[in-house]
């Protein structure tokens, strides 16, 4: 194979394992063809994508295994346990921290054949899907019937329900509809020993710690989510769009804080800093722009919009009409600039963190200034999204160009993580850990936190079969 791998090498699989897997799922669904190995070598970890244009890939799987049922996954996991072959679950491959990269000679367990819409309970407002369903397909099925799950991440068109669960994802409309942990009521999980865990869908339970939370952010290292039941919402009867200009990031954040304190629940709230505002809304230029979408039942949406309007105006907000919201709605899935910059040698990535309102502005200032100080930087910009009554997610995009791209990438991440931790923020709001963020996890969780997580991993998966080298395994990865 002429492609180069730089994180780990493809393994040699025991013959018994391959024969066993082929017996379980048939020859055509267990591939070692070059095209398949390359296609499952990388997710959307952007430094990896940057290197991929030179034929350099982080790791190649030893095989790609594509089951069609939970029972087949159970058998495959047991077979892997018997032969001590590590497995990397692969959903949509849209994760940006390398969570689906097949490290350590693992095989890829491709979940994309399991993409069925299983059940709709309109009375209870829940729907069940297989974990490999693509977000957009899930939403198309639901919207056809007058519903939405409300999870609309930028990766909607390339990420799966299982991926959302495993990374503890959040979508653009999360301030009203919640994050994935608020949506998932029940799930089916294949454990690392091949046994099945069924967490039935109920609104809440008090039977010890919440087991489903182990897998909401489990990154495929604690179990393989095979199906899930999510809560759904009737499509909104009314949508009201508003945008305001505020004199500073601090002022805008404070207005949103007051709006949420007043019990308004807009589906979308986004505060764009000057740089992002200029990029999204050239007509507005370098000003702090905040957009709101209120939606739902007519009375509630109207009231919500009224509260937003009143508090924004009382605090010096200048209305910008609906246009910025329409522009954002149009551009929100456009990730086209990243690949173009990478073609010209640029490094691009995004970092999302969270903080309480008291720290939110400081996290932004320190993150952006720290990242802007790194040699090679071209641009750093940010927006707040995913608001809570208590705080928000800050999402920073950076681009740079350097003779030593890895140094630039590492230094920028270090600066961002340091600024977040120093200001009491969390190192990740919704992208997860994968392998890249593992280097900062101890600073986030502390030694005790990491010990707890490792104990759970060791108890469930003592042989390290599932997604080895992710979440808590191993340490900082250095390029060969």
């Amino acid at each position: 194979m002429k492609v180069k791998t730089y994180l780990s090498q493809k393994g040699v699989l025991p013959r018994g394992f391959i024969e066993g897997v082929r017996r379980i799922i048939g020859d055509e669904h267990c591939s070692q063809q070059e095209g398949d190995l390359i296609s499952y070598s990388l997710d959307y970890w952007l430094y990896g994508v940057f290197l991929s244009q030179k034929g350099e890939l982080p790791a190649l799987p030893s095989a790609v295994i594509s089951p069609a049922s939970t029972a087949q996954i159970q058998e495959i996991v047991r077979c892997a346990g018997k032969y001590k072959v590590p497995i990397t679950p692969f959903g949509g491959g849209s994760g940006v921290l390398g969570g689906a990269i097949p490290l350590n000679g693992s095989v890829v367990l491709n979940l994309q054949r399991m993409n069925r819409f299983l059940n709709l309970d309109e009375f209870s407002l829940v729907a069940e899907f297989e974990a490999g369903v693509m977000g957009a397909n899930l939403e198309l099925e639901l919207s056809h019937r007058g519903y939405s799950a409300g999870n609309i991440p930028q990766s909607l068109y390339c990420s799966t329900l299982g991926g959302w669960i495993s990374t503890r994802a959040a979508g653009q409309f999360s301030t009203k509809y919640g994050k994935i942990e608020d949506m998932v009521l029940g799930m089916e999980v294949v454990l690392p020993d091949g046994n099945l865990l069924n967490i039935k869908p109920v609104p809440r339970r008090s039977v010890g710690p919440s087991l489903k939370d182990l897998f909401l952010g489990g990154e495929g290292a604690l179990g393989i989510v095979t199906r899930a039941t999510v809560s759904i919402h009737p499509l909104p009867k009314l949508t009201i769009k508003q945008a305001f200009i505020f004199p500073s990031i601090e002022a805008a954040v404070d207005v949103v804080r007051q709006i949420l304190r007043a019990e308004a629940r807009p589906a979308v709230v986004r505060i764009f800093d000057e740089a992002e505002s200029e990029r999204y809304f050239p007509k507005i230029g370098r000003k702090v722009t905040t957009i709101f979408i209120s939606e739902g039942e007519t009375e509630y949406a109207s009231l919500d919009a009224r509260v937003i309007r009143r508090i924004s105006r009382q605090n010096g907000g200048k209305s910008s009409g609906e246009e910025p919201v329409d522009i954002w709605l149009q551009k929100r899935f456009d990730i086209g600039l990243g690949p173009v910059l990478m073609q010209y040698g640029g490094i691009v990535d995004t970092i999302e963190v969270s903080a309480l309102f008291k720290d939110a502005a400081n996290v932004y200032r320190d993150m952006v200034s720290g990242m802007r100080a790194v040699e090679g930087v071209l641009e750093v910009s940010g927006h707040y999204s995913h608001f809570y009554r208590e705080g928000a997610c800050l999402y920073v995009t950076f681009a740079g160009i350097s003779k030593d791209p890895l140094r630039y990438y590492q230094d920028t991440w270090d600066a961002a993580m340091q600024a977040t931790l120093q200001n009491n923020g969390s190192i990740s709001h919704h992208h997860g850990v994968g392998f890249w963020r593992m280097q900062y996890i101890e600073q986030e969780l502390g030694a005790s936190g990491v010990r707890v997580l490792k104990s759970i991993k060791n108890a469930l998966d003592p042989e390290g079969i599932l997604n080895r080298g992710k979440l808590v395994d191993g340490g900082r990865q250095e390029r060969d």
Partner: protein
Amino acid sequence: MAEDKKETERIARCAMCADMCKYTCPTYLATGRETLSPQKMARLIVYNEKGFLEDEEGCLDLMFQSAMCGACSRHCIYDDYDLRKFIHKARVKAFDSGVIPEDVKKRVETFRKFGNPDGERELIDKGAGEYGYFISCSSYKDKDLLKATEKMLSKSGLAIRRFGGGDMCCGAPLYYAGDTEGFRHASLKMKAEIETRQVRRIVVDCPTCVKMMTEIYREIGVELDVEIVHTVQLIEALLKQGGLGLKREKRTVTFHDPCILSYDLAMFSIPREIITALGFNLKEPVYSAEHTHCCGATYGAKIGDHRLKDAVTSMRLNELRNTAADIYVTACPTCKSVLSEINMKYITELVAERIIAKR
């Protein structure tokens, strides 16, 4: 040279995209195989061009597993980009190197012998007029469609010359096989056949023929001096002009949007307006209009790779069956034949059934 560089940049950025269109790709959805997703196909094409692959033949074989339906292009985040052009180039490379799949090879051989992909056929050439109705290869085999078309045309009062069969074919099977020379020859022959008949406007049932005779012929420098329209456009015009008298109807109809009609010709609303004008109630499947899925046989899904084709067909049949409509209708003779399990009709048949004598 500058254009070549631009083209290389286009596919290279597709190869670094997050695969934002794969949710709409029928071969990917039907198989759950990441490798068939548009961005991964792009990466493999780029890698093959740069010499990063050991198994070039395997890569080229994958290129024949695209439905070439255009869903990815329709939903691409970049303007002015169509992955199919690059897949087609790779198919040309495969054809020139003699590594095309066996079933494709057989189809090309049949074409070379008979001038069409199906074998020996009778030549049809009847009627006269400035309008032409070109009987595509897929319509030729469909006696019900031809009968319905005759009924509709005779009631329309238009003078129409019907021609097709024999060795007349737009050349699409050769184009999708990567046979550049063969396709060029077929397109020039088609041009000559049309010119001989001296028609001003040609109506075609098959969306692929329309695409070939307009967009693809133009790309290879073959310009037809006639207007090519799809059958739904003719029906629309006839209904608007009151050229057809119609009975009313209340049954439900699900329209299957043929991929080329939808993604390349952007004709979503015309068939729906026709069906509604006939008095039927439309029942839309989840995947319709600009989210339609290929039936599995756009002369592209490895042309006869039955496992892949069957997987795509079976997915589409399930999607359509879910509407539980009284009647299933489409506007592509190939789709009609492939989806025959649900008694699919061509839209002309629906019109012909409803025609009554004009007062």
